C-alpha cells in the first residue's frame, strides 16, 4: 500500500485520539475568514547586509564606504521608491513589490546593541528588551489568539516558544520506513491512544510535505519553503509557520556569497508562494535578521557585524509596493558608533503592527506579545 493511501484510509476509517493541532479548518472552513489568515516568519541567521540588499543608490556616501561592493550590483538594481534599488537576484520579491505585495523597511533594528549573533538572534526572537529563552513573540501571539504554529526546524526556535502552541517538523534524514511497518505500528498501538494519535498526525504532516522533498537535497531552503507552503495549505494547518536560513555572515567575499544567498532566499520565497496558491492572498510574510553589517567594506571584501538593517514584509495580505522606514543617511557623522547604519525604528514595531492588523488582534492582545512597544497605526495590511 502506498503511504498516501494508507494515510487516506487512516483519515477516513479509524477512530483517532484528539490531536493537538487545531482542527477548526479541517472540514473546508472558509479561507476568507480572518481565522484562516497565515503568517510565515522567516528568520535569516548571520546578519544580512541590508546595504547590499535594499541598496540606497541615491546616497552620495555609499560609494565612499563600499565602492567594491556597491559597484558589483549598482547597474542591475531593480528600482524601488525614493531612489532605493533591490538586489538583482531578488526577482520574485521584486515581482511582488510591483504587485504591491512586498515592502522593504529600511534602517530597523531590535533593541540589541552589541554584535553577537546568538544574543542578537535570541533577543529578536524573544521580542522583548531582555531575552527570555522560553518565550518568543510568535509563541505569545499564538497563545493569546489560541492559534497553532509549526516551525520547520529540528527543535523549537525561541520565537515560537511559550505555552505549547507550536510544534516542529523537519524532513527526516533517516530513510523513511516501509508502509508495512506503519500499518503494523497502528495495530501495535491499538490500545495506546497517545502513540496512535501522534503516529497518524505525523504521517499526515509528512504526506502533505513529501511531494516537495526531492530525495537528495531535502534540507535545501527552497524545498523547505515549498513544503512550508504545502503544510499551510493542508487540512487543519497551522496559522503560523517559521522558516530559518543561515549563511548571511559575509565577512569575506561578500559579493559572490550574498548573490548566492539572496538567490536561494528568492527561489525559496517563489516556491512558497506557488505552493500556497490562493492562500497567498491571506498570507503575511515577515523576513528579518538579527542585525546589519558595517557600512564600510573590510579588508577581506566583506563586512563585519553591525546594527541597522532591513526587514521585508510581504504576502498577498500586505499593502506593499513602497519602501518603509526613515533613512538616516550614510555620512560618517550619521552612522551608529561611527561604523553602522543608524537604526531609526524598532523592527518589532513593524512586525507588531503588521501582525496586529493581519490577525485583527485587540490592543490588549498585541500588548502581551510586545509589552514595551507603542505600535504605530500606519495601515500595513490590505
Amino acid at each position, binding site marked *: 500500500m502506498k503511504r498516501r493511501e494508507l494515510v487516506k484510509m487512516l483519515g477516513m476509517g479509524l477512530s483517532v485520539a484528539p*490531536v493537538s493541532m487545531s482542527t477548526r479548518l479541517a472540514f473546508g472552513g472558509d479561507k476568507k475568514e480572518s481565522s484562516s489568515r497565515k503568517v510565515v516568519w522567516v528568520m535569516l541567521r548571520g546578519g544580512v547586509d541590508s546595504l547590499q540588499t535594499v541598496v540606497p543608490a541615491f546616497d552620495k556616501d555609499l560609494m565612499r564606504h563600499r565602492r567594491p561592493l556597491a559597484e558589483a550590483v549598482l547597474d542591475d538594481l531593480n528600482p524601488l521608491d525614493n531612489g532605493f534599488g533591490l538586489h538583482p537576484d531578488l526577482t520574485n520579491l521584486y515581482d511582488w513589490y510591483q504587485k504591491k505585495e512586498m515592502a522593504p523597511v529600511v534602517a530597523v533594528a531590535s533593541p540589541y546593541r552589541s554584535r*553577537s*549573533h*546568538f544574543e542578537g538572534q535570541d533577543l529578536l526572537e524573544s521580542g522583548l528588551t531582555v531575552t527570555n*529563552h*522560553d518565550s518568543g513573540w510568535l509563541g505569545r501571539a499564538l497563545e493569546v489568539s489560541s492559534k497553532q504554529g509549526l516551525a520547520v526546524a*529540528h*527543535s523549537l*526556535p*525561541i520565537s515560537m*516558544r511559550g505555552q*505549547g502552541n507550536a*510544534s*516542529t*517538523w*523537519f524532513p*527526516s*534524514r*533517516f*530513510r*523513511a*520506513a*516501509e508502509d*508495512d*511497518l*506503519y500499518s*503494523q*505500528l497502528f*495495530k*501495535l*498501538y*491499538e*490500545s*495506546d491512544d*497517545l*502513540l496512535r*494519535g*501522534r*503516529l*497518524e*498526525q*505525523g*504521517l499526515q*504532516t*509528512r504526506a502533505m510535505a513529501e511531494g516537495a522533498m526531492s530525495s537528495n537535497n531535502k534540507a535545501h531552503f527552497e524545498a523547505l519553503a515549498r513544503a512550508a507552503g504545502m503544510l499551510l495549505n493542508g487540512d487543519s494547518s497551522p496559522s503560523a509557520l517559521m522558516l530559518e536560513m543561515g549563511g548571511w555572515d559575509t*565577512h*569575506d567575499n561578500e559579493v559572490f556569497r550574498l548573490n548566492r544567498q539572496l538567490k536561494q532566499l528568492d527561489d525559496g520565497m517563489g516556491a512558497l508562494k506557488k505552493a500556497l496558491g490562493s492562500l497567498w492572498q491571506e498570507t503575511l510574510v515577515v523576513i528579518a535578521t538579527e542585525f546589519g553589517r558595517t557600512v564600510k567594506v*573590510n*579588508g*577581506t571584501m566583506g563586512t563585519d557585524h553591525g546594527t541597522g538593517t532591513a526587514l521585508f514584509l510581504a504576502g498577498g495580505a500586505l499593502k506593499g509596493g513602497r519602501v518603509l522606514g526613515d533613512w538616516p543617511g550614510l555620512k560618517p557623522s550619521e552612522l551608529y558608533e561611527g561604523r553602522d547604519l543608524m537604526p531609526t525604528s524598532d523592527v518589532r514595531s513593524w512586525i507588531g503592527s503588521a501582525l496586529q492588523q493581519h490577525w485583527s488582534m485587540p490592543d490588549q492582545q498585541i500588548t502581551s506579545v510586545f509589552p514595551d512597544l507603542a505600535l504605530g497605526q500606519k495601515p500595513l495590511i490590505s
Partner: protein
Amino acid sequence: MNEKHAVIAANRFGLGAKPGDLKTAQENPGQWLLEQLTIPRFSSDHPDSGEVLEAFYAYRKDVKRFKQQKMMEKPDNIAGRLFVHMAADTVSGAVNDDHTLNWRLLDFFSNHFSVSGQGGMMKPLAPTLEREAIAPNLLGPFENMLLAVEQHPAMLVYLDNDKSAGPSTGVARNSRGLNENLAREILELHTLGVNGGYNLEDIQELAKAISGWSITRPKEEQHGFVFRPAAHESGSRVVLGKVYRNTGSNQGEAILKDLAVHPATARYLSFKLARHFVSDSPPEALVKAMTDTWRQTRGHLKAVITTMIEHPDAWQSDPVKLKSPREFYISALRLTGLPVPNARLMVNTLVNLGQAPFGAGSPAGYGDVASTWDGPDALLKRVDWVNTITRQVQMNQPPVQLARAHSGALLSAHTAKMVSRAESRQQGLALYLMSPEFLRR
C-alpha cells in the same frame, strides 16, 4: 514482585536493560540500583577546559592574522571537532557501562545546569562542564557541585559573568558594568527555583558578590577560572536577609553554600529529581521524603537519591513516562548491541531525534516532561531511525527474546504476539523498539 521491579529498576532509573541485566537485578532490584551509585567514567583523552580555552585563543589569533594577510593557510578550527567528540563520549559511556543510574544522574544535572554549545567559544567549552564540575560531584554534597559549576569557565562565559564588573569599580568606569545574568539564573534555575522567595535586590546583591568571577585572558598562562579583585564590588552584601562580609571571592562562595542547603532549594531539586525519574507529576510523599533527606544531610546527593530508590512510591504504577530522545537512543543501542556509531553520527542522530547535545538553547535546559518530546514528528523520526538501524542488527535469536530480556514481566501479550508474528526478525525488532513498553519507562 521482584520480577516487575527489576524491569522498573532497569528502565525507570537506568538506561534500559542489556540482555542478562534483569536476571541480575531480580535478586534485589533496589540494592542493584544502589550499587550503581558510582562516579561515571569518561575516556580521558579529551582536553580540559583550560586547554580548550588555550586552543580557542590561539585559533582566534590565527583568524585575525589570516584576515590581515591572506598568505597563510586558513586556520583550523578544532572547536567543532572537540565538541562532537566530547558530546559523543558521554553517550558512549552510557551505552557501554553496566551501571546506568549514574549516567542518568549525570544527564539530569547536566541539563539542570544547561549550557549551550553555540558560538565560537561556547562550542568546545560547553561539554567540559559536565566532565569537570558535575560528574566528580555527582554523589556528594550539592554545594560542591554548585560551586564547581558556577566557577567553571563554561558557565561563566555562557551567562556572561566573565564580563561582569561591580558598578563602583574602576573597571566599570571603562564602559563595562554589572551583569546580572548568572546571578539571576543561579537563584531562578540552579537553586531556589522561580518561586523560591527571592526578589530583584537579592539578584543584584548576588551579582555584586560574584562580580570578578571571571576567566583568564589570552595573555595569561594557566587558563581557567580567575578571581579579579579589580572587577569585584567591595562591601558587604545582603542576600535573603543575611549579611555577608566582604571577603573577596569567598563572599560569593559563602552565599552559594547557603543557597545549596536552603529549604526552597531542597524542595525544588527534590521535585525535579522525582519528576525526572518517576513521573511528570511525582507523588507528593516521595518529594517530601527526598526534601527531608536533603535538609537532614545538607544536600548530600547520594543520600537523596537513596531515599528516592528506597521509597515505595517510586516503584508504583506501570511505566507512564515516555523516554526522552536521548534515553530512547541510548537504551536502543544498549539492547540491540549494535556497534557504537562514530562521534559525528551519534551527535547527528541525536539532533535528528530532537535532543541535540548541549543544544537546549536556554539556560533552563530541555523540558523534562514528556509533552516536550512526544510530538508527532518526533515519533516518526524514531520510526525512521529504528527502521534504519534494525537492518544493521545481526540477529540469530527471535526478536521476542530481546523484548523479554528488556521488558520481562511487563511485556504485554499483544506486543509479544506482534513482535513474534512480524514478517522478519528485523521488523520484529523494529516493532519492539517502537512498542509502548520500550518507549515508556
